[in-house]
């Protein structure tokens, strides 16, 4: 099998499944709705400077004012306009999730490819380390790393990545273990292809569908973990509007009954995570051969 043919066969597997989403029943619609939610949030955050009614970091009204015409979502404990903060607040979550998925991808996939392809004692030992991390409560690791690294977007992305690199590693490894026994890899080897050529051009494309599913789920997890870290007090400093920060600090005024300070940021976090989850769940059901009829 030539290289071009290989690539075409893989594309032939993925592309039609993504282009005809509307004809794929509920799972297809889940992907569409998910993509719509996420893009809407991205657009909202991008155009926030032009559409937000107030400066999100300025006291513009009375503190903890309930929703009214002037402030449709009320004001928070510092008298900041909640609507403006909601519009601006997605940037940190989005940055962290994209960064952490990128780090996971760049570290986890090559590690998985390499480790399983080399095999032997190296693979065994490495898998043991990865499994130890994987089996452990992820949030505890994220908290430990985030606390040690200090606040900041990149540090948070790193601490989240540490938790999810094992899932990339494991999925890639299990796939490669079965792929590398296939005859076309043998053919490539016997025709004198270098090990990195085999890994990159022959093995990697076959792993892509699984990685896509892991990555979309990872986006949702990253958003939730970032929110959790912020809630514990390991988030980014407050002069950048952030849903997680609003939620954490609004919670302290819970007993006063100021529901609007926590409800709106919380709902936005749910919406963003839900968007990613829908894409991930829909895709995994579309690409799962067991449920296809």
């Amino acid at each position, binding site marked *: 099998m030539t290289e071009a043919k290989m690539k075409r066969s893989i594309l032939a597997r993925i592309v039609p499944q993504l282009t005809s989403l509307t004809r794929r029943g*509920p799972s297809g619609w889940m992907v569409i709705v998910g993509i719509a939610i996420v893009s809407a949030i991205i657009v909202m955050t991008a155009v926030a400077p032009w559409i937000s009614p107030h400066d999100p970091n300025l006291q513009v009204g009375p503190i903890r004012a309930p929703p009214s015409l002037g402030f449709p979502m009320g004001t928070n404990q510092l008298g900041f306009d909640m609507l403006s903060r909601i519009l601006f607040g997605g940037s940190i979550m989005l940055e962290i999730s994209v960064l952490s998925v990128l780090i996971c991808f760049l570290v986890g996939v090559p590690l998985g490819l390499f480790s399983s392809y080399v095999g032997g004692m190296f693979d065994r030992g490495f898998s043991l380390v990865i499994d*130890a991390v994987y089996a*452990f409560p*992820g949030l505890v690791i994220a908290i430990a790393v985030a*606390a040690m690294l*200090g606040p900041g977007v990149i540090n948070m992305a790193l601490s989240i990545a540490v938790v999810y690199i094992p899932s990339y590693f494991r999925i890639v490894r299990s796939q490669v273990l079965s792929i590398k026994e296939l005859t076309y890899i043998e053919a490539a080897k016997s025709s004198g292809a270098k090990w990195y050529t085999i890994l990159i051009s022959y093995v990697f494309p076959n792993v892509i569908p699984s990685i896509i599913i892991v990555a979309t789920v990872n986006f949702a997890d990253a958003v939730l973990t970032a929110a*959790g870290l912020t*809630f514990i007090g390991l988030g980014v400093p407050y002069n950048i509007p952030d849903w997680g920060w609003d939620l954490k600090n609004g919670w302290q005024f819970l007993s006063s009954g100021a529901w609007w300070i*926590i409800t709106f940021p919380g709902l936005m976090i749910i919406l963003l995570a839900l968007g990613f989850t829908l894409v991930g*769940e829909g895709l995994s059901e579309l690409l799962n051969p067991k449920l296809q009829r």
Partner: protein
Amino acid sequence: MGLRSYIITRLVLMIPTLLLLLSMVFLVMRVLPGDPVALHFEKKADPATMDQMRHILGLDRPILEQYIDYIGGIVDINYLLAHGYPNLGKSMQTFEDVGGQIFSAFPATLELAIYSMIIACVIGILLGVVASKSYNSVLDQFIRGFGTVTYAVPVFFLGIVLQLIFGVYLHWLPTGLRLDPSITPPTGLTITLSALPGGFPNHFLLSSIAGLIVFLMCIVILKMRRKNLKYRGIAISVVAFIITWVIYAFVSWHFVQAGKLQISTGLYTIDSLLQGNIFTFFGSVKALLLPSITLGIVLSGIFVRLTRTNMLETLRLDFVTAAKARGLKETTVTYGYALRNAFLPILTMMGLQFAMLLGGAILTETTFSWPGLGRYIVNRINFRDYTAIQGAIVVFGLLVALVSLVVDILYAYLDPRIRL
């Protein structure tokens, strides 16, 4: 490989895994920036005092030496016997035994984890079965939606919303703590013991009754499993008889001399029942309700999805059609036949979810001021309390490893293909 050797292998493998985890945490904590002593004094003390404190805590020694010291402390059997918990070093914040602090915080987390897991499984499996029975109907889509949405809800946000509704507005349930401060925590069952006349020899003779009970139980169990009772079975029972007799005699003598026997689990709901105090029991259930429902609902989403997919696959199999064709009742087919077969992946998921549950417990504990291990970690991490965090992580790791072992044993027990 038989089940017994499998369990032993797993138990032995737990030691290097935990050691690996511990070593990683140990190294990472010391390599990354942050100084527990400076944080303890809030950078106000003079350098000489801080150096002295570092010396007392052993932070000025090479990392390898500290590490060997720490591992040596954990395996110190004498300390374990004297205190009832292993030596996990002194906290770098409060300078108390970390083992003791963890020992007192752990039951709170365990109680929360157990009840949330039960809630998650009941909600998840029931909804999953219902969804799979009405595949692609409105109900199915609704339940699928529930499964997806709960996955996307941050557990602390759900906790806050429930606090707001049931605590702040309705005043039905407390919004925090394990028990109302006005109620004294349950102590468990206390039995007052008085020594028999005749001292230890008499006591020892009477203890043979306990051994006899175990002997009879052994015989009954072996008989029930239709094992050959001839030589091996009787030999095993006799050995069990002697071992139980001796151990029971000495252990109970220890308690008789102390004058009382304290049975306490640290779980408030069980302890209050043991004590027979219904008032305390309802108090602790009330406090448990919101946190465990919060965590249970968030976790149930995964069980809904998993149950649904597995039931869909199982309901399509031939044996289900065969069972239906024989005229068995619909519920019998669903719960007695299909669910039993779809249950194994769910069981595996329970084991995997346990780690996730502990992660969620940290956030839930923070939301509800629940005095468990999660809040302990969160409180200590800002002070770089190395020893406290190492200790808590070892306990978490041990718990996760034990749960996955139990799940594996259950799996082997439930799946006839793996049975011995």
